[in-house]
């Protein structure tokens, strides 16, 4: 186990925490949280330029963080066609090969559309993108996305912004078991302990946004998540002890072995 670095395509990252940059009270807090987290990859969203709020533009402040690479998302897209368009615009703006494909047709629960996500990911991967699709925690979908060339899969722990934690734990374990690409839990996490738990299970990284942006002290929480991710990763490497002792049957099963 010398895989200290997270690998996405041919790119490597020292940090296994990916940060979302939305929902922060102001840009300065967001930047300080990004710095405190030690992350090397952040997600950003595309919006119309607003003449009245020129300071919303994140390009300039993020460009100052030389260690941080950008991963545009496709939020707002409600089908594969729109997501492909959004990804192309994002690549044009960022110069980054990474794209987080997220397609949520329902504006209330924001659950990802697995069918449209599959088609968008297939097209974008063929076009040279490093595609990280945000998906329901579905082991079959995860393998199909691996087959079409995604750089990672990002199953949800719970609904976006819900703070529901790892409610899809058993499914994520199954995804990890048979995946040849990194599995990154995206969405739902509330506490650094949950990030640690995801890493202990064998996730390659976690993506966190709301839990940091909506914390009372986002900068301190960003650091706490970094510690949680590192703790879980090291625990995984160290090998957890067993939950319980095995039982021994009262009547021997091996008496047939003379």
């Amino acid at each position, binding site marked *: 186990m010398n895989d200290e670095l997270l690998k996405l395509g041919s790119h490597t990252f020292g940090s296994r925490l990916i940060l979302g940059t939305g929902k922060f009270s102001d840009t300065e807090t967001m930047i300080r949280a990004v710095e405190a987290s030690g992350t090397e990859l952040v*997600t950003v969203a595309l919006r119309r330029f607003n003449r009245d709020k020129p300071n919303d*533009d994140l390009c300039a402040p993020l460009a100052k963080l030389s260690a941080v690479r950008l991963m545009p998302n496709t939020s707002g897209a409600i089908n594969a066609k729109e997501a492909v368009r959004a990804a192309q615009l994002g690549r044009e703006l960022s110069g980054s090969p990474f794209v987080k494909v997220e397609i949520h047709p329902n504006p209330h629960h924001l659950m990802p559309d697995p069918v449209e996500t599959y088609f968008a990911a297939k097209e974008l991967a063929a076009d040279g993108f490093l595609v990280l699709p945000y998906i329901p925690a579905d082991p079959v979908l995860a393998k199909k996305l691996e087959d079409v060339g995604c750089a990672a899969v990002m199953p949800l722990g719970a609904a976006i912004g819900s703070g529901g934690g790892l409610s899809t734990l058993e499914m994520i374990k199954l995804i990890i078991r048979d995946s040849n690409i990194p599995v990154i839990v995206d969405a739902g996490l509330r506490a650094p302990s949950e990030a640690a738990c995801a890493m202990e299970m064998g996730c390659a990284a976690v*993506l966190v946004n709301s839990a940091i942006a909506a914390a009372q002290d986002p900068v301190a929480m960003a650091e706490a998540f970094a510690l949680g991710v590192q703790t879980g990763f090291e625990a995984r490497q160290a090998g957890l002890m067993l939950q319980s002792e095995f039982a021994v049957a009262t009547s021997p099963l091996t008496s047939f072995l003379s």
Partner: protein
Amino acid sequence: MYLTVNGEPHEHRGDGTVSALLAELGTEPAHTALTVNGNLVFSKDWEIFKFSDGDTVEVLTFVGGG
């Protein structure tokens, strides 16, 4: 000429180049992506591109997102 920029009517007084419009809007060209009538206009083509009267222009940039 009259354009629709990000959904609103906009009177462009410049020479119809991308740099003239972006200067008018006050955005930093390096932090901007453009679509015109639904088509992506790559930044490598900006020097030769000219807007036409009635074009629908989307000027996009990055904001925070998860």
